[in-house]
């Protein structure tokens, strides 16, 4: 008896394969589709900050904020009307997020953080990876519940979410009212800053650990190099996320609504607009007579 392996696992090959498959699927779902979605989502949102410069001539006479609203609305419309299989994509995302989060909690609770004794950078990231996971899923839930399902927690008037009035809805949600900042708005804004920061960190660090998990970066040098790349990507995503948050926090509801109104009217006509805001209960703004902005955007 060379081995005497009385402690050899008495697991069946199927049990072994299943454990491995779940672990690898957890890693994979973090990257695709969740991670990819996060990148697309944050880059789209950040157009609120730089959209003015992407309008290519259609943005003349607009301020940065107005141009951002216009381009952002243009992108939201594109996603909703032109991306194929949107429902399928959404279902895949939801299933993936549920899978990754449930297993994430199971995995996170299997370890015991020991930062006090070993305060290394890598160990910090190990702990932050778990904390940012918890924070991230709570934030995602709040985010979707209020902006999608119309929950009113911290948004007393609720958000009259409409894909056609996207930027103004966001401004109202982040500021707590359509009239500017309220105490609830401050809380929501802080929540968004924390949530976005946590998720970007979680994704960037996850990208780094995934390369070890899958055995792509084996040498310590390769791990370091990939770490720098992930930190760079993380910094870029932070920039995208934070710039869209700042743009939304400083956006004037009325100003944004008027631009969206104009885009809506150009597309469907004035009567349709009146009926729509009436039916949705969307707070309107009075158009100023001097507000004439070149030829319309959208398609």
């Amino acid at each position: 008896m060379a081995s005497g392996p009385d402690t050899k696992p008495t697991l069946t090959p199927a049990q072994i394969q299943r454990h491995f498959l779940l672990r690898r699927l957890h890693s994979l779902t973090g990257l695709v589709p969740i991670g990819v979605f996060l990148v697309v989502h944050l880059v789209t949102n950040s157009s609120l900050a730089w959209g003015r410069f992407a309008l290519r001539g259609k943005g003349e006479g607009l301020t940065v904020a107005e141009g951002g609203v216009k381009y952002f609305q243009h992108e939201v419309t594109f996603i909703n009307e032109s991306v194929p299989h949107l429902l399928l994509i959404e279902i895949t995302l939801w299933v993936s997020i549920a899978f990754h989060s449930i297993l994430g909690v199971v995995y996170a609770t299997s370890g015991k953080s020991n930062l006090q004794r070993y305060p290394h950078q890598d160990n910090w990231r190990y702990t932050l990876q778990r904390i940012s996971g918890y924070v991230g899923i709570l934030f995602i839930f709040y985010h979707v519940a209020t902006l999608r399902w119309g929950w009113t927690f911290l948004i007393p008037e609720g958000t009259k979410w409409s894909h056609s009035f996207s930027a103004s809805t966001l401004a109202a949600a982040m500021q707590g009212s359509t009239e500017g900042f309220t105490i609830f708005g401050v809380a929501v804004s802080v929540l968004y800053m924390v949530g976005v920061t946590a998720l970007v960190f979680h994704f960037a660090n996850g990208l780094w650990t995934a390369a070890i998990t899958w055995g792509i970066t084996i040498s310590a040098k390769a791990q370091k190099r990939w770490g720098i790349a992930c930190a760079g990507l993380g910094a870029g995503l932070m920039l995208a996320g934070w710039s869209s948050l700042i743009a939304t926090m400083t956006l004037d509801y009325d100003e944004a609504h008027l631009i969206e109104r104009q885009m809506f009217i150009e597309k469907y006509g004035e009567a349709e607009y009146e009926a729509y805001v009436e039916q949705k209960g969307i707070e309107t703004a009075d158009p100023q007579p001097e507000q004439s902005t070149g030829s319309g955007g959208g398609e």
Partner: protein
Amino acid sequence: MIASQETASKGQHIRIRIKRSDGPGKPSYWQAFDVPREPGANIISCLQWIAAHPVTVDGEKTTPVVWDSGCLEEVCGACTMLINGGVRQSCSALISDIAPNDGDEITLEPMSKFPVIRDLWVDRQRLFDSLKRVQAWVPIDGSYSLGAGPKESPDKQGTRYTLSTCMSCGCCLEACPQYNLEEDESQWPTSFIGAAAISQARLFNEHETGKQLKRERLDALMGPGGVSDCGNAQNCVKVCPKEIPLTESISAMGRATTIHAITSWFRR
């Protein structure tokens, strides 16, 4: 040099605080001892002095403090403990380095990830079981000579040499947030195996004869408690006294298990 150090240390003491326990499952308690500073002293020599003079700083006579050791030259790993909170071998922990001044205090604790047998002595059986789990040996037992083995490339020998210096001390497990105390032996085969055994599986998979058990080792590393349960905190590699590139071994086995999973799926 040595002579001057000797005269300088005359009459000096160090205070050693020890986390003690009278037996498995017994509560722990702290006792402190004043030990005369001797030239060239290390933790083990201080523990020997305490064993010969088991009187605490309060003048209370107590039982000798128990610890484990073997080689006294940092190659067996038996004397591993927490010294001032950090995990390392006590035989190579020199007093002149960790407590250079008169009256300096040192704390000693048993490792926290293994069951305590008594005082500073722990039972590292789970670590040895984990080596069995991945069959960390070259399978050449038999009743007749198998003849010469296959050729080994110097390149691989280089990689293997470093991995082969592991002394199963347990430092990497003590520091690992994914490796935690498990007193129930029946849980060991599915609890996290730890960096040492993952690295040993790599060592023997890289060996031309050891390779024969490659698939079995990878199967063991794919299951619950295997390499995928590592959380990449990378504490292990920082505390390994032999500077074994444990995180490289973890990633290498991550790659090997990925490939193994795919190929064995097609082999079925």
